[in-house]
């Protein structure tokens, strides 16, 4: 029996702004629920579930002068198990290096911004705001929260 698996693989060297545009386009499609990824030879329709697993890994190798950002987005449909993790005081931040001091650590959910679809990661034009996210599940954290 034939496997019902479709895949698209693509790699290129491009400007960072093109890569950023790609992420932005992908974000738009995720909101809409589906996307068609198409190369010259392959295409695949992505029907995103209502709940996604979002994995991020950032690596820096100073000795080799290399840095990388890995994103894994996975889903399973029908996604009728909207079970957002409720880990306690995980913190996640994406911000400009010079704004390290402006990290906001919201321990209180009530103090997190409410007007964003993603209250733990918002951008106000100056820097990335950081809030404690009850959904986050850090998997590479040595330090333990007290």
């Amino acid at each position, binding site marked *: 029996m034939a496997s019902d698996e479709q895949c698209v693989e693509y790699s*290129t060297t491009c400007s960072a702004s093109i890569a950023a545009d790609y992420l932005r386009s992908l974000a738009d499609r995720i909101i809409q629920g589906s996307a068609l990824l198409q190369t010259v030879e392959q295409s695949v329709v992505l029907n995103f579930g209502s709940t996604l697993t979002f994995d991020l890994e950032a690596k820096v190798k100073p000795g080799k002068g290399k840095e990388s950002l890995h994103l894994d987005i996975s889903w399973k449909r029908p996604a009728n198990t909207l079970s957002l993790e409720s880990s306690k005081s995980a913190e*996640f931040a994406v911000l400009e290096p010079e704004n390290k001091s402006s990290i906001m650590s919201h321990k209180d959910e009530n103090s997190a911004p409410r007007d964003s679809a993603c209250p733990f990661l918002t951008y106000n034009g100056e820097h990335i705001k950081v809030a404690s996210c009850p959904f986050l599940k850090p998997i590479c954290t040595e330090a333990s929260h007290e």
Partner: protein
Amino acid sequence: MSSKNEAVSYSVSCSNDQAAEHLQTLAQCIRKGDTQIKVGEQSIVLNFSQKVDLEIDAKVKSDKGKGKLKIEISYKTALPSDDVSQEILSLEICPAPSEQSIATQS
């Protein structure tokens, strides 16, 4: 100067809107050129080069309703910022055809 390899990772289960906003935020950071990613007590600073390697790997198992999209953005930090030509991706991301139209075509 530290030459130690560093890595930070996290995993989150979230809604479409949250994942989308996550991507939009990362896109803004990539455009700005640098960002700090902090998970718990660990943090890492990425200084995006103007020229990056972009790898995309999408897999869908329609019969199981499962899908996975991998995106890797890597770069050499020492690359000069000049000689970056605006390229056009030959990978399109478009609205998916409705299920009805797929059924009609088949």
